[in-house]
């Protein structure tokens, strides 16, 4: 039974066609995946479904009746709720209050709010869907993954017929992803439909009944997942056959560039020792919270370590701040692009040169000709898609924002480049470009550290692999030495590792 019909929907922004003639259906109790690169039109489609923007052309039907949502709360009242990619929770309120936000009236007695009622109802909901978070906990004390679960619970709590999920797993560890899968299966068994956006194509195969692929604002295909192969899906998305997903090049290794010995931060990580050579990519695998990011922040200088030594090209350095880290030849692409990466109010150029502009100053004045020249050359080198260097950074797609972040790191010509989850929330095309930069930099003799929670990626791109768990280095592997299963069991600390 069709619950939602989208007929010939188009959307133009100025002269750009964001969507052209898109039509698809969503059936009751079905999981429909929307796939496509960033900027392919998925988010625009979602925003139209939610009423955030109106289509330029085309119609939609919900349960057979005309559907023209005026805004997201109108959409919600008609039975469509959404889990956003970015977390929208109130940090100072409890889990329960966040789940039922805006509906506190339901938990009042004679006009007085009763937290216990709210918490009980939340617990009921959590139990029903197997979510393991305390309703009483204050949200700011939660991990990112737990926050994501709260966000998911909120979307479910509206009893919506259609739940839209925009990259719901990007902040989740594998264990929690399983919980989410369970939630989705339960939702569909209750006769609700799920619209699912993800850049992790494995998830499309794990979850979806059908898939709709977008490319450049057009719908490329709508079909059942059964019988579809990964290669086919990738070629639909990319519009070309992507031969090798991880184009790792074999590059001759030089001398040791970075040497870390017995790095220690109390309560966070301990006894971290490793080295990286010029031209080498060292991967760090582990679960979210295993301490990988914290170690790198210690090396770069964001949160200096308590103890231990860092040596670069044989000279011991102390990086007490990112400035010192940069001066000593380390650059880092941070994991949290929103918080530690982009400056929203600045344009693309100024975002690109944020860790560089102070090196091209003469008597305190920024030499804007040099800034322009270097920005332009970085645009070319990384093929950043932007309407110009003065475009606001938020007008770029996630993948292109990430390229700007990579460009920022590269402008300082680092000897060591740390990339923390560089492909998170990035589309297939931009992903493979980032892998290409990896190769290119390695060829130029940069020592690269790659942190990724995407196990195939970190295995595919690294020369050597370090596995971390709970602040310790658990294992070290040469390339192709260990199987994914073995590494996975090391990450989780399962028996037989």
């Amino acid at each position, binding site marked *: 039974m069709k619950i939602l019909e989208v007929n010939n929907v188009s959307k133009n*922004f100025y*002269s750009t066609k964001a969507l052209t003639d898109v039509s698809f259906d969503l059936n009751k109790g079905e999981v429909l995946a929307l796939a496509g690169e960033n900027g392919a039109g998925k988010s625009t489609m979602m925003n139209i479904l939610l009423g955030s923007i109106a289509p330029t052309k085309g119609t939609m039907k919900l349960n057979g009746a005309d559907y023209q949502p005026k805004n997201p709360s109108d959409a919600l009242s008609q039975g469509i709720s959404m889990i956003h990619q970015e977390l929208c929770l109130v940090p100072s309120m409890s889990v329960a209050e966040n789940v039922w936000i805006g509906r506190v009236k339901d938990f009042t007695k004679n006009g007085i709010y009763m937290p216990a009622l709210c918490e009980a109802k939340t617990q009921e909901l959590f139990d029903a869907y197997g979510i393991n978070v305390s309703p009483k906990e204050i949200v700011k004390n939660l991990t990112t993954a737990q926050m994501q679960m709260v966000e998911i619970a909120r979307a479910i709590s509206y009893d919506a017929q259609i739940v839209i999920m925009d990259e719901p797993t990007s902040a989740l560890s594998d264990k929690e992803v399983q919980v989410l899968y369970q939630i989705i299966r339960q939702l569909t068994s209750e006769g609700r439909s799920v619209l699912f956006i993800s850049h992790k194509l494995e998830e499309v195969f794990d979850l979806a009944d059908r898939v709709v692929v977008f490319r450049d604002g057009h719908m490329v295909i709508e079909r059942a997942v059964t019988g579809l192969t990964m290669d086919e899906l990738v070629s639909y998305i990319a519009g070309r056959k992507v031969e090798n997903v991880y184009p790792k090049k074999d590059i001759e290794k030089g001398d040791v560039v970075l040497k870390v010995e017995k790095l220690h931060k109390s309560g966070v990580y301990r006894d971290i020792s490793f080295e990286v050579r010029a031209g080498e990519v060292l991967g760090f695998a582990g679960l979210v919270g295993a301490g990988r990011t914290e170690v790198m922040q210690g090396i770069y200088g964001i949160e200096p370590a308590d103890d231990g030594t860092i040596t670069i090209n044989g000279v011991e350095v102390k990086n007490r701040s990112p*400035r010192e880290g940069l001066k000593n030849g380390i650059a880092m692409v941070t994991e949290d692009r929103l918080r530690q*990466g982009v400056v929203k109010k600045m344009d693309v150029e100024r975002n690109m040169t944020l860790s560089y502009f*102070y090196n091209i100053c003469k008597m305190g004045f920024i030499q804007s000709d040099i800034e322009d020249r270097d920005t332009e050359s970085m645009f070319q080198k990384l093929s950043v898609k932007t309407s110009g260097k003065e475009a606001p950074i938020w007008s770029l797609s996630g993948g292109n924002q990430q390229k700007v972040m990579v460009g920022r790191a590269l402008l300082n010509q680092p000897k060591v480049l740390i990339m923390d989850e560089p492909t998170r929330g990035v589309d297939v095309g931009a992903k493979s470009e980032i892998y290409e930069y990896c190769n290119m930099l390695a060829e130029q003799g940069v020592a690269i550290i790659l942190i990724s929670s995407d196990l195939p990626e970190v295995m595919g791109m690294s020369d050597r692999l370090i596995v971390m768990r709970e602040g310790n280095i658990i294992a070290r592997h040469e390339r192709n030495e260990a199987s994914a299963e073995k590494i996975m069991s090391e990450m989780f600390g399962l028996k037989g590792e």
Partner: protein
Amino acid sequence: MDNKKKMTKDQILIFFLKNRALLLVVIFFILLTVFTNTFLTSGNLLSLARQIAANGIIGVGYTFLLASDSVDLSAGYMMCMVGIISGLLSQTSLPFIVILLVCSVVGIVCSSFNATVENKFNLPPFLVTLAMQQVFKGALMLMSNGTPIANLHEGIIYLGQGYLFGVIPVSVALMLVFILVGHVILSRTQFGRNVIAIGGNPEAARVSGIDVKKTRVQVAALLGFTIAIMALVSCGRIASAQTTLGGDTVMDIIAAVVIGGTPMGGGSGTVIGTLFGCLVIGLISNGLNLLKVSSYWQMVSKGVIILVAVILDVYSEKIYDRMRNRD
């Protein structure tokens, strides 16, 4: 052709939305020219320019402060305190240059102290400066026994009342120099970029190697310097160091800077805009005086106009966004 016309119309609209203060200045100018016959006289315009000179000077420092996502409630009383100190020093035989230096140092040290406390204890600027406002107020009362000081040094009088080449008021010239230098610093220098970056996203700025705490102290020092100069100019203008002028000053400055286009919350800033913001505030007082509106009604209407300007600020962003997303 039609499209082209629409584009230029849009561009004009965008220009005025981005330069709201300028728009308000033009409107007030026209209204006052039409409704009074005393407004457009050289005497009145000159006194208007002198009225806004002091605010224009501190406005430069305050633009940097708001752009860096900070605020200072103590600026007004700090200014009064510096004024009183200049008054006390005038009673000695110290040369003007020493008075100028001492006042500047006091301004810079006091303001930097605020920022240092904020940094050290990780406190919001609002609370620190709320407390320090009382400290400065108490200190200035202690120093002056609560009475204004007259007999200021002639150098101070010259700053407030003197003329360059017999036509340009020294205070106005000084303001224009501050505005110009401030504009260049904010838009072209490393320091200016640091300020915008820490206001836009302090964490990203820190990770990118910008010393956020140091920049905050530098901004405060700059503000302190403009406070000191403003104190001398405004004391010179009325030839006496007052004890009670501090309270309203801060609110007027914040209003001028925000109307000028520098948002509370930081991340961007315009010194030139602040000049027009000061003009708007000045024109309100000046115009209402000319229209013989009582000073109590002046307060009410000033508040309303500031409110309208701020609402315009929020709405213009939305209109601007909508225009960008239109077909």
